[in-house]
């Protein structure tokens, strides 16, 4: 399992610690809300809405350097748009990894 990292954020910040801190705060605030939104949509089988949230979440996977996770999210989004959710387990693992990581930074 790949691990999240802050390489992209640090590249973007270019040593600007204020931005780095602000951005991490945004991630910590926004990710749990999106995760909750994701589970609500998935559990009520609103697949199109779920795909929309996966689309938004996959940007965060990219930001955190989760390349394989991003690939899974792309497939999952397409699957959801087709009315299926067989990759939900794999996607949940990714979400848990991010969740755990955000608690350490």
């Amino acid at each position, binding site marked *: 399992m790949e691990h999240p990292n802050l390489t992209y954020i640090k590249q973007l*910040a270019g040593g600007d610690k204020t931005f780095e801190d602000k951005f991490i705060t945004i991630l910590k605030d926004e990710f749990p809300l999106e995760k909750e939104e994701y589970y609500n949509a998935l559990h009520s089988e609103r697949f199109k809405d779920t795909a*929309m949230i996966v689309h938004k979440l996959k*940007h965060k996977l990219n930001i955190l350097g989760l390349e394989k996770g991003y690939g899974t999210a*792309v497939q999952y989004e397409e699957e959801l748009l087709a009315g299926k959710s067989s990759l939900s387990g794999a996607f949940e693992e990714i979400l848990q990894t991010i969740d755990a990581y955000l608690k350490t930074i």
Partner: protein
Amino acid sequence: MTCIIIDDEAAARAIVGQLCTKTPDLDVIEEFSNAIEAIKFLNQQNIDLVFLDIHMPGFSGIDFVQTLKNPPKVVLTTSDTNFAIEAYEYEAIVDYLLKPITPERFAKSIQKVKNSLASQPALKPDSGTSGIGDELYINIDRRLIKLKFDDILYIEAKGDYIDVKTTKEDYRVHNTLKKIKEKLPAELFLQIHRSYIINFTKIIDIEDNSVLIEKNVIPISRSNRPELMRRLNLL
């Protein structure tokens, strides 16, 4: 160059904002989490560039571009390339940035926007005000109201708004004193304070630090006083 950022994801807005901060001559005027609010804003203010997320719930980036009559330059930001072909059908769309956006790619995009702006005649998109002949149109709630220059008493800056006081009514417009000044004839109007432009012909009397227009006392700043005195037909 002025820009706004539209994206329903706060992290995405922060990234574009940071990239803008590192770009000389590019000012972020406002950020929006939905396109509807941005449309309201653009109906009242001129902007050179919009960073626009395509994938937004309810009202997509493409819907946004289709809605605006004279859209500013648009750079799309998105996590997938599915919309690329459709996007380039719109003249306003200059570039397409794939998330996560790198500083190098962002810089190229800004250059494209600059080239695009330089290669077109100056556009005058809808703004809060438009001057024609001896009158001025102000945009209030998407209604254009005609004001004759001669009816305007003075204009006062109020934060992001200006209050236009006329002989008949008062109007609040989302615009700046600087913008409306450009539309007013210099022979009739004069800025006498950083927050006030007056109709020169409506002055009743002048004291040391103020002018009286109807029953309103308007301050004169020290720096603007010499110009006011120069324009007076002093006996």
